[in-house]
Each structure stands twice: as structure tokens, then as C-alpha cells.
């Protein structure tokens, strides 16, 4: 039993925090508000790439740092704390990790070194309209044509699709689920930009008989397990991103209420305020423990389906409660766009609803309990 982090893990986390806290501030984030520009800070991204952070979980022979998912999660927590405009989850987790784990040696050698060097941006399309289960694609189908696959259908809410050179996605086949790395320049690919609550660049991805050559196919029919693997890691990553964002919002509110005076005293001295913040503290501790439990199990390649579902339930509930509590104790300041809190609240909502909200995961967990799974050992 060990709840602490190794020295190396702390160093990775501190390096990320240092770069992000120096480079991200309200002023730099403001340029992306209301989609004035795609929310992707390429200068910051280049700095992170130069520090080796996006490749932290990529093997050294492909140019990465050779650490694991735990180290990557610690970076993601810091990205959440700063709500930095970088594609860390969609790129490093949803795309790089499954390619490293499941792709052919040829694809790995082509893709990973360039991706780690920041020359190639990748993402993954995990959602379909009214279908938030990445493991079970319904809207996008694939048929066999020679040794290629031809894909049709629509994915939605694809992060950084317009910026990426490769999009990992799953399609239903006659015999199972195929997983491919799609070149968005292929004929028949259409990207329709979406505007979402957090200002993250997202697209609807429409596929009209798009031919995917054999070399870009990761799995022809056995993709469900790949999607399960990557969906759990992506979900756990969203949870730690939520943790970083919620923790920052809470500390902002604690500082604000300690300074803000009404009736000649800091409003933090009112128990009603202090107790609301204490509830945030407890909620965030719960999110921290459940998220890092999930990360730790995934990092050791242990089955973590239950633990990931539980972490996402906490991510949804904690995000919602912390968002509204911190805005409330800030009064009008919390909704003032010149004060940094409001963007955090947008992200707490974004993460809450991405890859299944609390209710969805409760329903899935409840289903599994009904089937006699997920009991305590």
C-alpha cells in the first residue's frame, strides 16, 4: 500500500506544473474565448514537446521517455489545474497509447517518433450521436474491399480533428469492430466544426465511403478490446484532468473568501462559507483517490472497469458541485469574465459530460451488479 509518488513521478509533475504555471494565464486563455481562435496554444505545445512531456509514456526506442500511464496522468492533472489549451488527452492517451500497444511495428515506427517529436498531431473519435460507448460503434460502419476497409457514418465531438493528421476510430463490421488510424485528408472525409461549452476545438466527422488502406488498419474485427482499453484510459485521464481543474477552482475560492470582507470580516469566517468549502475539499479528496486508484490499476495492466466507472461518477458529481459552490462563494466575481474562475467552470462541465456522465456510469455499474459483477472481494 503506497499513496505517495516516487521521486521521478514528482519530478515529472513539477516540470509540467512549472511550464504550465509560467505559460498559462487568463490573458493568454482569453484569446480563445468564443472561438476567436482554435483553442490550441502551439507555442506552449512546442515547449511541452521539447521537454519530452507528451511522449512520457512512449517507449524510449520511439523517442519517448519510457515512463507509464501514471506519469502521464500526473501531467494531465497539471494540464487540468491550468486548463491549458493543449490536446493532451485526445493525443497522448486516446491516440498514442493504443497505437503503441496494439498497432503493427510498421505503423509504430512511422507514427510514434514523429508524434513524440511534435511533427504529427493525432486524436481519436470516440463518440457518436446518442452513443457515448466507444466500445460499441453503431453509426460508423466498415465494409471490406480487397485488403482495405471502406468506412461510412458520422462520429461526433472529435477533439482537435481539424488540427490532427491522424484520427483513431472504431467502426462496426460484419464480424465485430474495426479500429483504424484515419487520414483526415482522405477523399470522403468531411469535418464540420462544433462549438462546445469549453471552447475546445471539436468537429463532427462525416465519413462517406472513405477508403482506409491496409497499412492504416490496427484491427479488422477484434477492435472492441482495443476500444475498451483506450476508453478506460481516456476516461481515467478525464477524471484526473477534472481533479486538477476542481482543485484549482477550490483553492481560488478559498483565497478569495479569505480576502473578501463583508460586515468588516473576511467572508471565509462565516461557517456557512467555510463549510461549503470543506465539502468541496472532501469531494475533491474522493475524486483524487478514486481517479488515482483507477490510474494505478491501469498502469499495472490490472482489470479496472469498476474502478474507472466509479472514478467517472465522482468526476461528474465533484465537478458539478465544486463548480457551483466556488461560483456561489465568489458572488458576482465568479461570473465576471475578467476573473479566471468562469473558464474552470466550463471545463468542469465539459469533463462531467464527456465519455458518459455520472448517471450513465451509474447505470452501467448497476447493470454489472445485476449480472453479479463488481461486488466487493
Amino acid at each position: 500500500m503506497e499513496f505517495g509518488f516516487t521521486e521521478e513521478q514528482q519530478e515529472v509533475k513539477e516540470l509540467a506544473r512549472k511550464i504550465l504555471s509560467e505559460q498559462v494565464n487568463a490573458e493568454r486563455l482569453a484569446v480563445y474565448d468564443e472561438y476567436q481562435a482554435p483553442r490550441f496554444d502551439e507555442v506552449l505545445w512546442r515547449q511541452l514537446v521539447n521537454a519530452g512531456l507528451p511522449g512520457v509514456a512512449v517507449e524510449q526506442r520511439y523517442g519517448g521517455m519510457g515512463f507509464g500511464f501514471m506519469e502521464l496522468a500526473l501531467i494531465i492533472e497539471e494540464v487540468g489545474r491550468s486548463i491549458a489549451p493543449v490536446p493532451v488527452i485526445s493525443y497522448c492517451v486516446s491516440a498514442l497509447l493504443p497505437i503503441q500497444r496494439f498497432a503493427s511495428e510498421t505503423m509504430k515506427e512511422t507514427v510514434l517518433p514523429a508524434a513524440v517529436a511534435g511533427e504529427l498531431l493525432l486524436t481519436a473519435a470516440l463518440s457518436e450521436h446518442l452513443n457515448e460507448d466507444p466500445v460499441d460503434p453503431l453509426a460508423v460502419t466498415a465494409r471490406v474491399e480487397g485488403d482495405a476497409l471502406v468506412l461510412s457514418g458520422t462520429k461526433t465531438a472529435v477533439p482537435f480533428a481539424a488540427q490532427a493528421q491522424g484520427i483513431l476510430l472504431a467502426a462496426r463490421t460484419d464480424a465485430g469492430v474495426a479500429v483504424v488510424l484515419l487520414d483526415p485528408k482522405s477523399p470522403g472525409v468531411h469535418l464540420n466544426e462544433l462549438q462546445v461549452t469549453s471552447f475546445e476545438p471539436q468537429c463532427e466527422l462525416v465519413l462517406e465511403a472513405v477508403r482506409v488502406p491496409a497499412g492504416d488498419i490496427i484491427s479488422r474485427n477484434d477492435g472492441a478490446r482495443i476500444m475498451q482499453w483506450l476508453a478506460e484510459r481516456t476516461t481515467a485521464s478525464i477524471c484526473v484532468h477534472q481533479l486538477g481543474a476542481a482543485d484549482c477552482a477550490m483553492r481560488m475560492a478559498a483565497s478569495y473568501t479569505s480576502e473578501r470582507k463583508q460586515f468588516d470580516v473576511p467572508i471565509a469566517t462565516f461557517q456557512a462559507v467555510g463549510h461549503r468549502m470543506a465539502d468541496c475539499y472532501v469531494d475533491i479528496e474522493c475524486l483524487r483517490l478514486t481517479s488515482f486508484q483507477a490510474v494505478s490499476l491501469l498502469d499495472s495492466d490490472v482489470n479496472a472497469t469498476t474502478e474507472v466507472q466509479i472514478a467517472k461518477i465522482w468526476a461528474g458529481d465533484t465537478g458539478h458541485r465544486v463548480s457551483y459552490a466556488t461560483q456561489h462563494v465568489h458572488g458576482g466575481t465568479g461570473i465576471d469574465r475578467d476573473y479566471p474562475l468562469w473558464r474552470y467552470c466550463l471545463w468542469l462541465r465539459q469533463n462531467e459530460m464527456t465519455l458518459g456522465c455520472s448517471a450513465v456510469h451509474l447505470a452501467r455499474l448497476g447493470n454489472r451488479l445485476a449480472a453479479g459483477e463488481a461486488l466487493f472481494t
Partner: protein
Amino acid sequence: MNIQFTEKQLALRDELRAYFGQLMTPELVAECERDMGEGGGPLWREALRQMGRDGWIGVGWPEAWGGRGMTPLEQFVFVEEIMRAGYPFPFLTTESVGPMLAEHGNDWIKRELVPKILKGDLLVAIGYSEPGAGTDLASLKTSAVRDGDDWVINGQKMWTSLAHFCDYTWLAVRTDPDAPKKHKGISMFLVPNSDPGWSCTPVHTLGGVRTNATYYDNIRVSNDHLVGELHCGWKLITGQLNRERLSLINFGPVSQLFNQVVRWARSAQLPAGGSVIDQPWVQQNLARCRALIECMKLIVYKQSWAMTEGVLEMADASAAKVYGSEKFIEIFRLLGEVYGQAGLLRAGSPQATAEGGRLERLYRTASIITFGGGANEIQRDIISAAGLWMPRASR
């Protein structure tokens, strides 16, 4: 980060599970049920002595004090197994007051009383609260006045649980009524419940559990009965409460209860067809409980780990108390809903299932934990001040 027990800890768990499996005879189980999970009966006492003979009391005490020197993590395994077995272990005596006596007691206490605790022969009740001193404990009025070499104690205590079968009371008294700050004039005494000046009247609580009002009428004790330094009792009280808080939250029994409810809901058939668990709202309730209990498990694991490493933060200890106490109540409610009307059947009712009867009692009795062991409002004050550096209003 690695949230798994070591092989050695798992071996300890298996050893304990087998041990308690043998100890808990059907007769003892029945006696404990009758005594509302509090113990005190003859079979219970004999089992405690047996545990003392087998070296299972004071597992976390240093070896120099006659204990086994287990780390908090190993103690956690011990507590979990004992709770799972359903034995009402006298934690307040063995894990909370006992170690305070072993550490701060004088020679007489260490020689005469501490070994008896380790043998299961001596039980101690806690006398802190008074009719006028609850959350503001330092305003207590029970007094000890010096008379020659002795002390004469007078006053009344409230909520002196277990006192009716304990041998001593760990008593907080005022020894310096003129101290500039009221918590500076308090000392700790060990008062024999056998003294003619000691008496108690039962207080029956909504859960059916008996607690007591205790009375101290000119009780004369020697200076040997003073624990720690004169007027320095407050430190011992807070030290004891920190130990007590940790033993309040146990996820072992509730996870076991959860499993039983799930199994029941899978097998119980609805008259209209299908089983209870086929209903979406039942699945929702159970999933919610599963998530709440998982987090409770992580909180107590982390606390035990932090204590083993010596890095327990005050705010986290309070957060554990707030979370554990309030979520227990929520969990009992959600699980009770699954039983519906049957969840109102008391254990004595022949129609009640074993776990249904337990749930009925647990839900009814759980209200004590949000204010017992330090009211949750005080815990939230500690969290916002120690965890978030927020200023606090003066009291």
C-alpha cells in the same frame, strides 16, 4: 502509488479470518445480537480473555508495552476482520485509552492496570461530556479537589457508554478552576467504577442501545489515579480523540452488507415477475452505494497508510470523519430502499431476513455518528482552516 496489500498483510488477514471464524460460536453471535452489538455479556467477556491469551489485544501497541507492534495498516486489517466477524471489540479500551495509559500512565497504572487490559480483564469507559459540556468540552465542571494525599471527585457525566459493565472510567475533571484558559485547568483521572460514590443511570437511545449518565459523589482516589501531568489533561483528550476518530470508520462490514443486499436483490422474485434487481432504480441505488463504499475504502486505506508513514494531515482525518459518518447514513438509506417495506422489519420479527434486520437497525442508529466523536460542524471548521488555510471566526 499502489493500492494493494502485501503478501504478509494478506496472510495476516487469512489468519485472523480463520481465528475469528472459530471464536464466533452461534451462542456468542446470539448474545452479541441480544446486546445490540455492544458486548458485555458473559460469553463476550470470556471471548475477550481468550483473545488476550492468544495475543490479539493491543496488536498495534509497541512491543515494549506488551503489544505486537503492528503498523496502522496491519491494525487496519485486524480491525476490519474483527468487524467482519461481528465481535463487539472494546476498541475504546484497547486501541484508544489503553495506549494513552501505557504511554502516559504512572508506574502503578503501568504495572497494575495496563497488563489487565492486554489480558482482556479490564475495561475502561470514557467520561468527557457533561450536561453543559458537549462540543465545547473544555467548559466541563466535574472537579477533583486535593485533600491531603488524595483527590476528591464530584460531578456528573453524560453519554458514558459501556460504563455499566466497565471497570474504570477515564475521567476528565477540572483541577484548576482559576486557569486563565479553561482547557488549561483540566486533568485526567482513572476512577474505579466499583467505588461506592460511583453510580450510573441508563439512557436509552432511539437505536435501542443503552448509554449512561454517570455520577461521581465524593469519590476519593489516591494520586496514583491521576494520568499524565496535573492540569495537562487536554493534550491527552485530544490525543485520545484522534485515535478514536480513526476507529469510527470501517468499510469492511458495510462492504459485506452491500454484497449481501446485492445477492438478495438478485434472488428475490417480484410478484409480477423478474427479480428485485431488474428494476432500474434498484440498480441505480446499488451502483451509488458501490461508488460511495469504494471511496470509503480508499479513505481509510489512505489514513492507515498516512499514519504508518507519519504523514497524517489534520484536514484529511476530519474529512474522513465527515465523509464516513454522512455516507454511512446515505448508504443505509439507499440499501434500505431496496428492501422497501421489508426494510422496516426489526431483527426480532420472524419474517425479517438477517441482513434486512441489520439494515433496519443500522439506519435507525446511524444518526449518532455525525455528532459523536466530534460534531461534523467542528470537523468542517478544521477542514477549511487546516486544509484550505481559511480564517476562522473567534469563539
